[in-house]
């Protein structure tokens, strides 16, 4: 009896396991979707409409990130939390921090991230450069809600960065 029940359920269990494994690999290696929370990236990403963003992960193979990309990274303050910010400067760049009029160099293996909504964003201006190893992917598209679907563009603040 038990064997017959097992035989009936087995294809279903097998399908579920296969699906989980395939989708986990896809999410780790290729792309995933995150829900944006908080207003720090307004107007690029609007959390009030419950926006979902597509995160591309293939850029992590060689870390070919560019200045101006929107990136997802693990918060250096709380490793359970993912943050979405704009990458402003790469290792070796000199950056002018507007808050205290200082010019500093980004150390090796780190990057400088800032939110688009500078007024309320908690970013590198508070906790300094973020290790590149914490970056989990690059936001390329907004995928939800339907009327907001579109690419997320690369954008740079003018005149603050001196690339190496």
């Amino acid at each position, binding site marked *: 009896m038990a064997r017959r029940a097992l035989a009936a359920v087995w294809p279903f269990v097998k399908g579920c396991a296969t699906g989980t494994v395939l989708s*986990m690999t896809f999410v780790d*290696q290729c792309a995933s979707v995150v829900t944006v929370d908080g207003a720090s990236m307004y107007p690029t990403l609007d959390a009030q409409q419950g926006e979902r963003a597509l995160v591309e992960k293939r850029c992590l193979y060689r870390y070919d990130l560019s200045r101006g990309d929107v990136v997802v990274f*693990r918060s*250096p303050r709380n*490793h359970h939390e993912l943050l979405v910010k704009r990458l402003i400067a790469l290792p070796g760049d000199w950056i002018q921090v507007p808050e205290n009029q200082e010019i500093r160099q980004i150390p090796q293996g780190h990057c400088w991230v800032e939110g688009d909504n500078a007024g309320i964003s908690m970013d590198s201006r508070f906790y300094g450069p973020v290790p590149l190893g914490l970056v989990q992917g690059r936001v390329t598209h907004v995928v939800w809600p339907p009327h907001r679907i579109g690419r997320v563009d690369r954008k740079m603040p003018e005149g603050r960065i001196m690339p190496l």
Partner: protein
Amino acid sequence: MSGFFRRLGAIPWRSIAGEAFHRAFLVAQAFCAIHVVDHHLCSLAIVRGPSMLPAMNLAGDVVAVDRVSVRLGRVEPGDVVLMISPEDPRKAVAKRVVGMGGDSVTYLVDPGNSDATKTVVVPQDHVWVQGDNIYASRDSRQFGAVPYGLITGKIFCRVWPLEGFGLIDSNQSR
């Protein structure tokens, strides 16, 4: 000529394609299963270099890395961890955790030459990591405390060389 086409038509293309697809899917499944186990359960890594010397050899040991306890937050001072180097994201380094967030850590600034010590408080959700061989290790004494998110696994067992097979002592403090 028409005989050739007739013979082409007689080949069971559909079942061949089906079989090929089935095989390819099996291979893909195997790869994905390996990836999931490697990234989320446990994996093997080669540790090289002088920085962990008494615990791990210079020439390169194969060690088993446990990925689960990092995710569950079960990393304690004394554990040997594998982490992404904060100075180069493509590199993985193995170090021993000395202090967790909130602990204060005292270390020798320049162990070869002077007895000067320095005490720092590790920021929240960071870890202080040091190599066991403090004379030849690039660690938190140079680049400061490291965010917890950079830790990718806990090293718990040496697999190769076989004579050194065994658990890695997690409290071999200096």
